[in-house]
C-alpha cells in the first residue's frame, strides 16, 4: 500500500478518479454507458471525462445492453480495454448471453489465444422506492460463472485501487458498486495505485465472532462492531470480503480459527446467495472449527417492495447483526437489560430508513 497523504474523497469520486487515471495511463481504455457524458454523469462517477478525453474515448450508448456488451467484447478482442457501465445491475440481465457465453468463456474456449479485458460496472440500487426491478443484488448470479471475476469494493480506497486493478486485468471483471456507498468518504491517495482482486480485508478486529460481510453490509457490520465494542466490550472481527469471485475463503478460515464463530452478511436474497456458498466452503474446508452454528444474514426471498412502509425491515441492518452476534454468544438480549437498551439506542438510525445510514460517513 502506497503511503497516503491525507485526502478524504467519496466512493463516487474515487471511482471517477480510477477511470480518469486509467485513461490517462492507457490510451486503450474507453468508457461507454447510458448517461456517461450526461449532466448526471452516472452519479458523478464519469464527470468531465468526455471533456478531458474526448468523444472518441467516452461514449453514451443506445439502450442495447446485450449488443453493446458484445460490442465491448469485440473491441476488447481488438486490443481496446472498454469500461462499460449499467446504472442498475438489473439491466445487466439483458446482457447475460454476452457476459456468460462469450466474455467469460472466450479465453478458455480459444485455448488462451485471446482474452477479453473488459470491466462492467453495475450499480445496486436501494432506497427511495427503487422497488422490484431496480434494487436487485445479483452478485451470486455472476460469481457462479467461471471466467468472470466479480468484485464488490466497500471503501473508497478499495474502489479506486480495485477498479484500477480491474481495468488492468486481462479478464472480464464485473465491478459491483452499492449505491449507498457512493457518498461515503475515505482516505484515498492521489496517485495511481492498485489493490489486488480476490482478497478480503479486516475492517474491525475482534476474537468473539467472525462477521464476513459484502459491500454495503460491511458498513452496517462495522457500525454494529463499534457499538458492540464500546457498549458491551464485545469484539467481533468484521471482514470486508471485497471480492465475490474469487472468494477469499482463506481469510475467513484464518479468522474463524480464532473466533470459532461465523456470521455472513450479504446484500442479496437469502437463498442461493454467496453467503451460503461461503458458509459451505468454510464447513467443507475446516469442519469442526465452528463452535456454534454458522448464521447468514441477508434479505428475504422476495422482490423488494417499493413502499417504504414495507421496505423498512426488508434490509438487515446493524441491529440485526448485533442481535445475531449476541444470540450466537448466548448473551441475554432482552430489552430489560440496561446495556442492551443502550446498544439499541446507539444503533437507532437517525434519518429515514430508505436513505443511506448516517451512522457512518467515513473514513474507514
Amino acid at each position, binding site marked *: 500500500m502506497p503511503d497516503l497523504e491525507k485526502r478524504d474523497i467519496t466512493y463516487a469520486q474515487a471511482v471517477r478518479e480510477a477511470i480518469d487515471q486509467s485513461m490517462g495511463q492507457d490510451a486503450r481504455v474507453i468508457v461507454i454507458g*447510458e*448517461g456517461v457524458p*450526461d*449532466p*448526471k454523469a452516472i452519479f458523478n462517477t464519469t464527470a468531465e471525462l468526455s471533456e478531458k478525453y474526448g468523444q472518441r474515448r467516452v461514449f*453514451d*450508448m*443506445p*439502450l*442495447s*445492453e*446485450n*449488443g453493446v456488451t458484445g460490442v465491448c467484447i469485440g473491441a476488447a478482442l481488438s486490443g481496446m480495454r472498454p469500461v462499460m457501465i449499467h446504472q442498475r445491475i*438489473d*439491466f445487466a440481465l*439483458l446482457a447475460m448471453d454476452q457476459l456468460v457465453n462469450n466474455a467469460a468463456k472466450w479465453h478458455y474456449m480459444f485455448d488462451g489465444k485471446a482474452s477479453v479485458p473488459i470491466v462492467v460496472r453495475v450499480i445496486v440500487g436501494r432506497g*427511495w*422506492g*427503487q*422497488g*422490484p*426491478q*431496480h434494487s436487485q443484488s445479483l452478485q451470486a448470479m455472476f460469481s457462479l460463472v467461471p471466467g468472470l471475476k466479480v468484485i464488490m469494493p466497500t471503501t473508497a480506497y478499495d474502489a479506486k485501487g480495485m477498479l484500477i486493478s480491474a481495468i488492468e486485468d486481462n479478464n472480464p471483471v464485473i465491478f459491483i458498486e452499492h449505491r449507498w456507498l457512493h457518498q461515503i468518504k475515505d482516505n484515498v491517495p492521489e496517485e495511481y495505485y492498485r489493490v489486488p482482486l480476490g482478497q478480503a480485508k479486516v475492517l474491525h478486529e475482534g476474537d468473539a465472532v467472525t462477521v464476513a460481510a459484502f459491500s454495503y453490509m460491511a458498513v452496517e457490520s462495522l457500525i454494529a462492531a463499534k457499538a458492540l465494542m464500546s457498549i458491551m466490550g464485545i469484539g467481533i472481527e468484521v471482514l470486508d470480503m471485497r471480492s465475490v469471485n474469487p472468494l477469499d475463503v482463506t481469510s475467513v478460515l484464518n479468522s474463524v480459527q480464532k473466533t470459532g464463530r461465523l456470521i455472513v452478511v450479504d446484500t442479496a436474497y437469502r437463498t442461493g446467495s454467496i453467503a451460503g456458498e461461503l458458509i459451505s466452503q468454510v464447513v467443507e474446508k475446516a469442519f469442526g472449527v465452528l463452535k456454534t452454528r454458522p448464521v447468514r444474514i441477508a434479505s*428475504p*426471498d*422476495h*422482490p423488494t*417492495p*417499493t*413502499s*417504504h*412502509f*414495507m*421496505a*423498512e*425491515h*426488508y434490509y438487515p441492518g446493524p441491529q440485526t447483526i448485533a442481535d445475531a452476534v449476541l444470540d450466537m454468544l448466548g448473551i441475554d438480549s432482552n430489552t430489560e437489560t440496561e446495556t442492551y437498551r443502550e446498544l439499541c439506542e446507539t444503533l437507532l438510525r437517525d434519518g*429515514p430508513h*430508505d436513505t443511506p445510514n448516517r451512522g457512518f460517513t467515513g473514513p474507514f
Partner: protein
Amino acid sequence: MKKENHFALFRSMLRIRRVEEALADRYAEQEMRCPMHLCIGQEAIAVGVCAALSANDVMFSNHRAHGHYLAKGGNLNAMIAELYGRSTGCCGGRGGSMHLIDLDVGFMGATPIVGGTVPLAVGSAWASSLRDENRVSVVFFGDGCFEEGVIHESLNFAALHKLPIIFVCENNGFSVYTRLTERQPNRPIYRIAEAHGMTATIGDGNDIEEVLSIAKAAVDNARQGNGPQFIELSTYRWREHCGPDFDDGLNYRSMLEIENGLKDNPIDKFAMRLKESNLLSQSDIDGYEAEIQKEITDAFQFALSSAKPSTKDSGERIYA
C-alpha cells in the same frame, strides 16, 4: 368529430396535466418516496390513442405511465395511493409510480425495465388471436426503447402472426438526458417497423386530432385482421426525466429548445382551436378545472387517509 368527443379529449388531457402538476407540487413533501416520471407535455398521445380504443382493448406501458393509465380509465385514487405506498394503491404499495395496473379497465401493467412490456403486449395480442377475440393490444414505449433488441423480436413475431397490436412509439427526442442523435443514426424509426412488414405511420404527437385520426386508422386496421400497426409520434418532455422539477439548470437542452417545446402545448393548442370554432368556452374550461381540482383533492385525501402496509404484508403473495 362529435362535440362530446372534443370535450372528452380536452378534459382527459387537462386532467392528466393537473394530476401530474399536483404530484409535482407535493413531491417535495417527501411522502411519495419513489421515482416518478412525468408525462407533462406528452398528454395528447395517451389521450388520442386511448380515445380510439374500446373498453375491452388492453394496454401495456412503461416507466412514464401516469398518462397512459389515466387515459385508459385507470382508477385515480388507486394511483395516488400507490405513489404514497399505501395498501389501497393499485399494487398495494409494492410498485410505486413505475408499476401501475388496473385490470378492470384493461390496463395490464406498466414496468420500468425499458422494453420489458413490449413483448408482453405482443403476447396478449397473440392470446387474442388464438382465441379469436376481437381485442386489440396497445403498448406505449419511447424512442430510447426502440434501441432494445426485444423491439426487433417483438415486431417480427407480431408481423409473422399478423397480431392485433398497436406499437406506439412516443418520440420525445431523449432517453434520460441523451439526445436521439447520440443513440440512433439519422433515419426515421417508423421505417424500420415498416420494413418488418407492417403498416407504420408518423405524426405530430402534440396534435390531439392528428393522434386520434392516426390511432383510429391503426385500431381499425388491427381489428380488421390486417396485423400489427406501428405509430411513431413526436412530442416533448417538459420536466426532468425523473422527478417533479423543470431541468433547465442541467443545460443538456437549450433554453430556446425548451421554450419552443413549451409553446407546442397540446392542451392549449387544442383549446385554442376549439374556442376558435366555438366548440369550447372558457366557462367549460373553468368547469372542468373545478371538477378536476375536486377529484384530485379527494384522491390525495383518499391516499393519505389510507392504511399503511406492514412489513409482515411484504412477505406475502410471492407465489401464486
